[in-house]
């Protein structure tokens, strides 16, 4: 019998970090399958490039920092970061774009701060924003969803394109890509079209963009599963979606021709991913329940402001990073009342 003194408790519950991260991975699978179906093999290639880059760069930094490599890689956080970033990137992005973004996310946004638990910003979103401001052209050229593109690429063709940038003879990027619904809305509103005119275009579906609404639905499904498995709580997603929906309703009621409907906002872009998978990142988010509500509401408002009046079609990544900055202050001012201390 060992005689080392081990301090209580002598009992531990079933939770561990790897399980938490793995569940996030599982919850992403339906959306990933949906993305591959909708946008083609590029999504898969992005995923593979991102995962390989994430694991390799994390291992490299850990080796430099003389930290245990395998144990840390097994926590699954690098995998999650890679997956979140990969499905946020254009499906026909060149490999180096994915690699640069992922490496930046892991090395600069995470490991240089001290690794998992010490990063003030969500690594995937930091990587995304870096790419967005550095390579705007590559980042805004989205693959057209299935049914809206005039040509299809096979797995090998996409791989070749990713690695070398060459397309099969007779195919152009124009045939494969289209503007995203949010982009279209922004540009056309700028050209004095009304919302109803724009929404009449071929890329729009029932609530949001054609196909996009399905992806957002699948992400919502995964998010609900995370809620059910108690990996996340309702506070952040409800606050994000609720505030975004509310503010969008408000403006939509004021002027429906200038402001898109709340359902369009909720079903477009990265809102669902942001609400269920990014803003719920415990490391960079607020901790207390009230704090999480504040965090989510702030994010919802920022998303709407950036989308409606900002320079970018979508604002989820910026909203997340801005709220990440505010998280310590939010936590400080939303501390619960401790037992035995005066109310108020």
């Amino acid at each position, binding site marked *: *019998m*060992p*005689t*080392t*003194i*081990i*301090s*209580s*408790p*002598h*009992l*531990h*519950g*079933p*939770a*561990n*970090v*790897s*399980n*938490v991260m793995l569940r996030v991975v599982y919850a992403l699978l339906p959306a990933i399958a949906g993305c591959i179906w909708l946008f083609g093999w590029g999504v898969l290639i992005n995923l593979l490039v991102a995962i390989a880059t994430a694991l390799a760069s994390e291992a490299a930094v850990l080796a430099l920092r003389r930290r245990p490599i395998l*144990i*840390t890689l097994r*926590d699954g*956080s690098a995998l999650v970061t890679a997956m979140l970033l990969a499905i946020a990137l254009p499906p026909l992005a060149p490999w180096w774009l994915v690699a640069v973004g992922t490496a930046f996310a892991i090395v600069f946004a995470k490991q240089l701060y*001290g*690794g*998992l*638990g*010490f990063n003030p910003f969500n690594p995937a979103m930091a990587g995304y924003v870096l790419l967005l401001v550095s390579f705007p052209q590559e980042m805004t050229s989205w693959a057209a969803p299935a049914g809206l593109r005039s040509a299809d690429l096979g797995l090998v063709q996409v791989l070749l394109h990713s690695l070398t940038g060459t397309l099969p003879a007779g195919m152009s990027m124009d045939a494969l890509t289209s503007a995203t619904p949010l982009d279209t809305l922004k540009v056309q509103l700028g050209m004095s079209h009304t919302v109803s005119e724009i929404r009449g275009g071929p890329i729009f579906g029932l609530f949001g963009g054609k196909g996009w609404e399905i992806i957002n639905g699948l992400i919502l499904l995964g998010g609900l599963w995370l809620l059910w498995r108690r990996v996340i709580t309702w506070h952040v997603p409800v606050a994000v979606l609720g505030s975004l929906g509310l503010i969008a309703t408000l403006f939509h009621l004021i002027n429906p021709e200038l402001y898109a409907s709340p359902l369009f906002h909720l079903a477009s872009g990265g809102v669902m991913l942001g609400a269920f998978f990014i803003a719920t990142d*415990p*490391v960079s*988010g607020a*901790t*207390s329940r009230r704090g999480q509500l504040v965090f989510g509401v702030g994010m919802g408002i920022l998303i709407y402001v950036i989308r409606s009046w900002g320079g970018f079609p979508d604002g989820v990544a910026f909203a997340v990073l801005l709220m990440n900055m505010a998280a310590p202050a939010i*936590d400080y001012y939303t*501390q*619960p*009342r*401790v*037992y*035995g*201390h005066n109310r108020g």
Partner: protein
Amino acid sequence: MDLALSSRDHTEAAERMMQNHTDTARVHRHLWRFHGGLHLPDHKSLSSGQQIQPAALPKHLVLPLQQHIGAPAKPLVEVGEHVLKGQMIAQADGFVSAPLHAPTSGTVSAIEERAVPHPSGLTALCIVIESDGEERWVEHSPTTNWAALDASELRNLIREAGIVGLGGAGFPSFIKLNPGARTEIDTLILNAAECEPYITCDDRLMRERADEVIAGARIMRHALHARHVVIGIEDNKPEAHAALREALARLDRSDIELIQVPTLYPTGGEKQLIKILTGKEVPSQGLPIDINIVCHNVATAAAVHRAVELGEPLISRIVTVTGGGVVAPHNLEVLIGTPIDDLLAQCGGTRPTLARLVLGGPLMGITLPHRALPITKTGNCILALTPGEFGQHGPVRNCIRCGECARVCPASLLPQQLYWHARAKDFDHAQDYNLFDCIECGCCAYVCPANLPLVQYYRYAKTEIWAQARDKKKSELARERHDFRTERQEREKAERAARLAKKKAALEESPAADSEEAKKAAIKAAMERAKAKREAADVAPKNTDNLTADQQRQIEEAEARRAAAAEKEEEVRK
């Protein structure tokens, strides 16, 4: 177990009045919730079916002088002395302390440092008794008429019986039965929650000796003049609840409320149970008495009954011996001081898979470094754990700020912040986040997905802060002393200067002092006077033995000067 309830007649009338009051005051008790808490696998069925059995009489009993919160007891016996069962062998030293009694008759074989059950595996002064196997009792007398005693007499009986809180903390019970003249006690709560997994000693006590618990509750109520008495029991002990209900009905004690509370760790924490039953919160850094509540464990109540109505001091307790590492779990009535090894042997010994021995429950118990340690008054459970019973234990990772700990914390603390600051040795911030409201229940560490030993960090921070406070006190004292010394030195310097100035003035005024001759004559005369005086007294000053002739001369000269100066001063005064 037959019960001395002869005092019943005397108290009947008084209690009836209280009963009527209670009945009208409270028909149904609203239950409250505390924040957080855990539903744990309780493992109580391992031992809950085991009747209380007396443990075999051990050959040696080791009795640490400190088995309670407060000052260690002072031995009253010497090595070689024969003692009788129940004889006081060490007395309370100061107010917050408790006496110690011989658990059996025998001979005191040693009073020495022995290993004691302590989180750090320390040794402490113990009285060792070699039992003679006769179990001869010291003369002791029951107090049947306790209701006629006033509260302070009752408290004294309880104090002399060495009763301390048997739930785990070990605070001397008589102090908690002393509300002070101006404090009215609204509610006496008997803690029957027994919320830690595995432990069943209170469960068995209530099932088998419900009458004793109720009798003790009545005595405690009398000492406190408490308006209400509530027994709070978790709903995972239906048999104990039924036994108490039956006993209350049989003894016609409807003035004692028996309340089932939902099973949720740590309901048995004093602060949590108070919150559940009354909705009130014990103020931070305060005591239940600050909100007119007193809380005692049910086993303490039974011990009070025995002390008062049977005259038996606290020399034994019920101990649950359980866990997957022990062959046959038991509930044993154990003499204080019995080696834990003896108890394990009586439970069929341990299994080869035994990985850790714990004193107390799995959430708050302490690891025992070996099994040659004695059972003390607060030792409610010996837990022999096997590797499969620790739950999941992956590698320790960084905190991911998931906030699970804050969600389960029964004190509504932010454990992740406490951890962060404790780890950074930023103790001021740790205190800003109310470190000292942490009850060390272990909920946070249980749920932590990063497997962080959170409670260990909090204990470390608390200990460091206490040490810093001690150091600060010490250095303040040192500074005070230094300041005082400097001040004294300066004062003396000033006084010396004043004297010198005065002398100088006197010298200038007196012309006689000017002549060298007169000075020398005066010195000589003074030397002679001093010598004569010394010879007359025939006592040399203490520090001037064995002096060389030269030193002796110097001293004489100095004294002569001093005497001359004194004379001159006298002259001046004249």
